[in-house]
């Protein structure tokens, strides 16, 4: 085969199907969760250590920056959780057909965003 044959990638017209986007976001959200681990552990530590640090934490979490951070973590968690359950189901041969896989990837996006908004509203 001629390795040097010309390629034409119509980048403006190529679109990932939704399952591919969900899969990519699964990686992105996993990476974000990994990076936020030290802050999350710090939060757990301060929530448990003493009544003083527990109360102090309540004040820190009122700050818009921490609320923004927590909302981001919340979405990453919800998406990783929902998409992960979808992958586990696919491993067990549920929803392997193309139409089902497309539908379930749409559900992952909708449910994880809805849960983020639902809990985000309580947070803010």
């Amino acid at each position, binding site marked *: 085969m001629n390795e040097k044959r010309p390629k034409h990638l119509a980048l403006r017209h190529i679109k990932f199907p939704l399952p591919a986007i969900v899969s990519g976001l699964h*990686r992105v959200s*996993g*990476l974000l*969760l*990994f990076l936020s*681990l*030290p802050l999350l*552990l710090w939060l*757990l*530590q301060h*929530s*448990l*250590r*003493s*009544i003083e640090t*527990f*109360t102090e934490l309540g004040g820190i979490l009122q700050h818009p920056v921490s609320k923004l951070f927590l909302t981001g973590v919340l979405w990453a968690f919800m998406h990783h*959780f929902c998409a*992960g*359950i979808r992958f*586990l189901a696919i*491993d067990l041969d549920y929803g392997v057909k193309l139409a089902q896989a497309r539908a379930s990837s749409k559900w992952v996006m909708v449910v994880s965003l809805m849960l983020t908004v639902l809990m985000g509203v309580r947070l803010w």
Partner: protein
Amino acid sequence: MVNRVVTGAHYGLRDWIMQRVTALVMVTYVLFIAGWLLLGSSVDYDAWTGLFANNVVRSFSLLFLLALYCHAWIGMRDVVMDYIKVAHLRLALHVAVILALIMYLIWSVQILWGF
């Protein structure tokens, strides 16, 4: 039958299973904590520390975190392997992730047994 020469380090299936087992451990824990938060009326300091002071919950929490760190290792290793093409940078990142996760594990024990 094709006589295939099987090569590789053979850690693929082991890690694949590991990723799913740790996921199941974490789902169980998350549902437990979510249920506790939803059923309990208000979360004050006494209720919160009371939950984690229970030895079963404390051990379950450490099991969850251990599963999380194993899961994170496999995930981060795959991401680094896929996107970092420079060998020495890739190795350095692998080592950094491993060291960070071991530190987190030590920290987790200190958090859970230190109040």
